[in-house]
C-alpha cells in the first residue's frame, strides 16, 4: 500500500514521487443524455507515471480532454499545482506547461517533421511580428536557440533521418513518435498521452515504452497515459486509475488494481446491473 502523504512516496524501483500536481475533484461530464464521466476524483503526483485504463467508451479520452481544456465538465473542479483552475481554453492550458498527444494522431500534415516539432516550441518564442519580419537579429537568434532544443528531442527519439520529410509521407508508428516529439519539445511539466502505442507492432511498442520511461527518468516529466495493453500498463506505470462506464472502479498500484474484483469483472465483461 502506498502511503499517500502530501509529500509523496517512493516507488518500488526507488524513484521519489513528489506532491500532487494535478487534482481532479468530483468531475462529472455529460454529453446530452450520455454521462461520459461520473463524479470521478483522482490526483497526479509530481514525477510519476499515472495510467488511466478501462474498456472502450469508459471515458478515458474524455478525462484527458477535461484536463487539457477541450471539454468543460458540468460539475467538479480541477486543481493545478494546488490552485483551483478557472475555466480555460486549450491554448491557455498548453501555456501552463501541459502538453499532450491524441488518440488519433493530430499532426500538421502539410509540414515537415522538423517544422512539426518546432511548433512545440511556440510558447517559448517571444519575438513579435516586426522582429520576425526583419528576421536578422532577435528572430533568427530565437529560431536557432529553439532549434537546438528541438534537435535534442529529435536525437532523443531517434528520428534524425526523417527530419526534413513531410509528415504526410510517414508510416503510422513514426507519426506517433513525431507527435510525442512535438509534445516533448514544449518541455512540459505534465505530459498527457492518449494511447501512445495503439496500432503499433511489438517492436514499436517496446521502443515507445522505452522512450516514455526515459522521458520520465531523464527530465522528471510527470506523465499521465491511457493505454489498453495491460502488460505495458503494468510495466510502465506507478499508479493506475481504472474507469468503466464513466465511473472510477479502481485506483492504486498496478498490483492492487490487478487484484481488485471490480476491475477483474469489468475486464471479463461481467454484466452490469
Amino acid at each position, binding site marked *: 500500500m502506498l502511503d499517500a502523504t502530501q509529500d509523496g512516496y517512493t516507488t518500488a524501483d526507488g524513484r521519489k514521487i513528489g506532491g500532487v500536481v494535478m487534482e481532479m475533484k468530483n468531475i462529472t461530464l455529460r454529453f446530452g443524455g450520455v454521462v461520459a464521466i461520473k463524479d470521478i476524483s483522482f490526483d497526479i503526483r509530481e514525477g510519476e507515471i499515472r495510467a488511466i485504463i478501462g474498456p472502450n467508451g469508459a471515458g478515458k479520452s474524455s478525462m484527458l480532454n477535461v484536463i487539457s481544456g477541450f471539454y468543460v465538465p458540468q460539475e467538479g473542479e480541477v486543481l493545478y499545482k494546488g490552485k483551483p483552475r478557472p475555466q480555460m481554453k486549450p491554448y491557455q492550458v498548453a501555456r501552463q506547461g501541459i502538453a499532450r498527444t491524441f488518440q488519433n494522431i493530430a499532426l500538421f500534415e502539410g509540414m515537415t517533421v522538423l517544422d512539426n516539432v*518546432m511548433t512545440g516550441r511556440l510558447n517559448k518564442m517571444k519575438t513579435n511580428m516586426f522582429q520576425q519580419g526583419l528576421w536578422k537579429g532577435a528572430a533568427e537568434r530565437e529560431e536557432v536557440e529553439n532549434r537546438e532544443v528541438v534537435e535534442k528531442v529529435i536525437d532523443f527519439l531517434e528520428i534524425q533521418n526523417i527530419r526534413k520529410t513531410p509528415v504526410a509521407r510517414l508510416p503510422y508508428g513514426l507519426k506517433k513518435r513525431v507527435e510525442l516529439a512535438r509534445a516533448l519539445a514544449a518541455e512540459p511539466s505534465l505530459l498527457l498521452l492518449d494511447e501512445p502505442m495503439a496500432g503499433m507492432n511489438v517492436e514499436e511498442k517496446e521502443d515507445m515504452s522505452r522512450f516514455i520511461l526515459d522521458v520520465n527518468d531523464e527530465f522528471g516529466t510527470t506523465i499521465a497515459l491511457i493505454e489498453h495493453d495491460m502488460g505495458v500498463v503494468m510495466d510502465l506505470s506507478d499508479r493506475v486509475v481504472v474507469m468503466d462506464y464513466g465511473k472510477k472502479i479502481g485506483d492504486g498500484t498496478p498490483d492492487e488494481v490487478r487484484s481488485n474484483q471490480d476491475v477483474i469483472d469489468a475486464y471479463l465483461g461481467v454484466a452490469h446491473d
Partner: protein
Amino acid sequence: MFYREAGDFKTSYVDDNQTFPIKFDRWRYYAVLFVAFCVVPFFINDYWANAIFLPFLIYAIAAIGLNILVGYCGQVSLGTGGFMAVGAYATYKLMTSFPDVNLFFHIIIAGGITAIVGVLFGLPSLRIKGFYLAVATLAAQFFLVWLFNRVPWFYNYSASGQINAPERTLFGHAISGPASEPWAVYLFCLVFTVGSAILARNLTRGTQGRKWMAIRDMDIAAEIIGVNPLVSKLTAFAVSSFFVGIAGALFFAVYLGAVEVGEVYGINKSFLVLFMIIIGGLGSIFGSFAGAAFLVLLPVLLKNLLVGTLGWPTDLAAHLELMIVGLLIIVFLIAEPHGLAQLWRVTKEKLRLWPFPH
C-alpha cells in the same frame, strides 16, 4: 552536374535556415536581383512596362498577400478586389489630403489601413469556415465596391465618379500622373515587390508562419500547442490585407492612374489573384511570383501569337485564354494543388540526384 548539394554541408542551424540553402540557387537569386535592378531599367519602355513588368510586379504583391491568408493560414477569401480598392482609395485620399508627403509613405499607410479593414472583415472567420467564410468575404467584396461607388467623399466628389492620381515625384522623377517615366515607375514597384517578398518570406519561415500553417493543417492540434486561433487568424487577415492593399494602391497610383472602382477592383480581380496562387502554388512565396507571371504573360503571348501572327480576331483569342485558364485551374486543383512551385521543386529534386537517381 553543376546543380549540387553534395559538398555543400551545413555546419550551423543559421545556414540550414537560409531561404536558398543551395549555393547555386542563391547565386541565381542574386543574378535575378541584379538584372531586375541594374539591367531592366535601361531597356524598359512604355509597352514593356505597361504590358508586362508593372502588372507582374503588382500582382505578385497581391498574390503574396492572398497566399498568406489562403495558402499559409487556410482561410478562404474572395474579397481581394475589394481590399485592393481599399488600398487604392486610401492612397487617393492621402495623396489629395497630404500632397507634401511622399507617395512612398502614402502607399505604406494605405497598406496599414487595408490591414485594419481586413481584420474587420476577417472577424467572421473566428466563427465560420470554408464555404461560409468564402461567402462572407464575397459580401465584403461587393460591399466595398458599393461603398466606393456610392459615397462621394471617397472620390472627392468628382463628376465622373473616378479617381485620378495626381503627379508625384520621387528624387525628381515623376512616378505617377501622365508624365511618369516607365523606368522610375518600374523601380518604384520593384522595391515594393522585393520588400514584400522578403517580409513575407521572413514571416512565413519562422514562428508566425508555423502558427498559420498549424491553424491551416489542424486547428485543434494548433490549440493544444498553445496557438490562440483567434489571434492567428486575425494576424493572417491583417498581414494579407496589408500586402493586398499595397498592391491595390500601386495598381491605381502608378500603374493605371485613373480608376473606376467597379471595373478595376470588381469580383474578377478577386478571382484573378486567386487563380494566380492556385496555378502558382498555395503556401509558396515563389509560387505567388510564378502564378502572377503566368497569368500576366498568358494573354500577352496569346495575343501576339494568335492575333498578331495568325490573324485571329481579338475576342476569339480572349475566349481561348479563358478556356486555357479554366482548364489549368481544374488540372492544378486535381493533380497538383501546390502548383507551378511544386513542379519546380520536383524538377530540382530530380536534378539534384541526376544522373544517379538512387
